């Protein structure tokens, strides 16, 4: 394994004006769509929302669909607890997001792009609309056939799931669809659609600006480049930091912890809880623990029962209720740990709950229900005594 150390970088938040982004687009659009897609594939860029699907492949599958109407969607429904990077990106460098969308649109043959912004971020709308208007105007004046619109959510975590997001944009309940078909074949309005995270689209712009090689020089074989991390919890330096991928979690805690770190929740409520003894052997990246960027640090004063209880309450409320494994599973996991804590159930009941969580992983319809097992099993395994006593 390559030995990486923690390194701060500054690509995402590098100041860039609308006209500079337009210049990057014009330079990039001199290439053929296929060449751009090959570049994105070659860069090794993987989705920065957390799931980590190779961005270039997503584009290629969508381009291969024979349909006159296609869409590019920027997923700005940032609802994962502990994640706040997309808000900052849209607040400070929105034009780079729009740049990534335009380049994607050209590459796959789409004429329209949408940003789906979570309702909790509505205060960003006036400023964003201004940037989008100016951007659309400049695209038009340069003869680039692509228009960007914005749509708002209304407070539903599940709409960050891509197919639930399409449903919401179509005016329906945000309930995930069955897959396949995947968005590349049938997404928004049942048309071929590329849906990328805010941060992924900024990296597209940066890769087109600085070249594939410079992006590839960072990170590891499985996790190319850098990533924006949202750091919160028991840390003297909470905030947003862009770091090279592939670092050991121990290095991260060395830099950001308060000296008394007990555990780190990597990837938000739906991610994994890593206890102190595993910090050294855990790599932050797709070969280790992938993350949408949420890093919540807990010190020894925190009760991991409370942490897990908070997460389960969250999932219980945000489960869309469509499929039984998730709807009933979330409820029973929450009730289960409460009854073990109160002594109404034997500690061994936790093992049955773990089986339930693992069943949800296979049986739930979408990522929400499937990922509840991540925090549940990792917290119960590592902090069993805190759940029981």
């Amino acid at each position, binding site marked *: 394994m390559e030995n990486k150390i923690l390194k701060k970088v500054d690509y995402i938040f590098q100041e860039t004006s609308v006209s500079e982004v337009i210049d990057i687009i014009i330079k990039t659009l001199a290439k053929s769509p296929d060449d751009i897609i090959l570049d994105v594939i070659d860069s090794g860029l993987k989705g920065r929302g957390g799931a980590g699907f190779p961005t270039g492949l997503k584009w290629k599958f969508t381009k291969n669909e024979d349909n006159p109407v296609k869409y590019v969607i920027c997923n700005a429904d*940032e*609802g*994962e*607890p*502990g*994640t*706040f990077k*997309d*808000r900052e990106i849209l607040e400070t460098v929105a034009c780079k997001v729009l740049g990534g969308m335009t380049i994607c649109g050209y590459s796959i043959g789409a004429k329209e792009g949408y940003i789906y912004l*979570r*309702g*909790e*971020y*509505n*205060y960003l709308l006036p400023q964003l609309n201004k940037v989008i208007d100016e951007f659309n105007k400049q695209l038009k004046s340069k003869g680039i056939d692509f228009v960007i619109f914005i*749509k*708002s*959510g*209304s*407070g*539903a*975590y599940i709409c960050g799931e891509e197919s639930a997001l399409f449903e*919401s*944009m*179509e*005016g*329906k*309940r*945000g*309930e995930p669809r069955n897959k396949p078909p995947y968005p590349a074949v049938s997404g928004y*309005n049942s048309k071929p659609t590329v849906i990328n995270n805010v941060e992924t689209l900024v990296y597209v712009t940066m890769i087109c600006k600085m070249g594939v090689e410079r992006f590839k020089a960072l990170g590891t074989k499985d996790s190319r480049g850098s990533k924006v991390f*949202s*750091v*919160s*919890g*028991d840390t003297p330096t*909470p*905030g*947003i930091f862009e770091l090279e991928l592939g670092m050991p979690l121990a290095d991260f805690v060395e830099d950001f912890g308060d000296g008394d770190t007990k555990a780190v929740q990597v990837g938000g*409520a739906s991610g994994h809880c890593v206890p102190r003894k595993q910090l050294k052997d855990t790599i932050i990246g797709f070969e280790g623990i992938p993350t949408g960027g*949420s890093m*919540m640090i807990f010190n020894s004063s*925190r009760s991991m029962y*409370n*942490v897990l209880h*908070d*997460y389960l309450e*969250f999932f219980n*409320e*945000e489960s*869309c209720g469509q499929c039984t494994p998730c709807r009933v599973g979330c409820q029973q996991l929450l009730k289960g740990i409460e009854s073990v804590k109160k002594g109404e159930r034997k500690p061994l009941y936790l093992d049955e709950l773990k089986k339930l969580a693992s069943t949800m992983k296979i049986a739930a319809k979408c990522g929400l229900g499937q990922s509840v097992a991540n925090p549940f099993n990792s917290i119960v395994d590592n902090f069993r005594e805190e759940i029981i006593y």
Partner: protein
Amino acid sequence: MSNIETLVKDLVEKHGKSRNSLMPVLQGIVKEERFLSEESMIMVAKELDLSAAEVYGTASFYTFLDTEPRGKNIVRICKTISCHMKGKDEIIEALESSMKIKVGETSHDKKFTLLTANCLGWCHKGPVMLVNDVVFPEITPQKAIEVIQDYAKNSK
């Protein structure tokens, strides 16, 4: 035409008469009225040529599309883990005692509804409060009460 009828007609005209406009239309009503009354949902159904059940189905799915009467200002306190660790309970207690309502309730003068919310995306600057569309990060119990008093003064 009643106020709500004009509002719905204007919104449908602005966003277009298609199923895809349902969310922006409902959001537009909530922005003005703070909630979706039965009357308004039936009106939207008629205008967009949908069944009222479908409109209600969509409306009832989303936290921010309330279907019961709300106050003029909606106060939401983030209750997710980082804000929990930073003391959201103290904020809620302070607001409950100063507004004389519990979470989920609306004040007698209909000026405020107090609610909790799941992660609002300010984990590094918790606890955080959202009043309508305005965000207040790193709030203290004292500051929260002051903000509410300002809103009380400015809304008749």
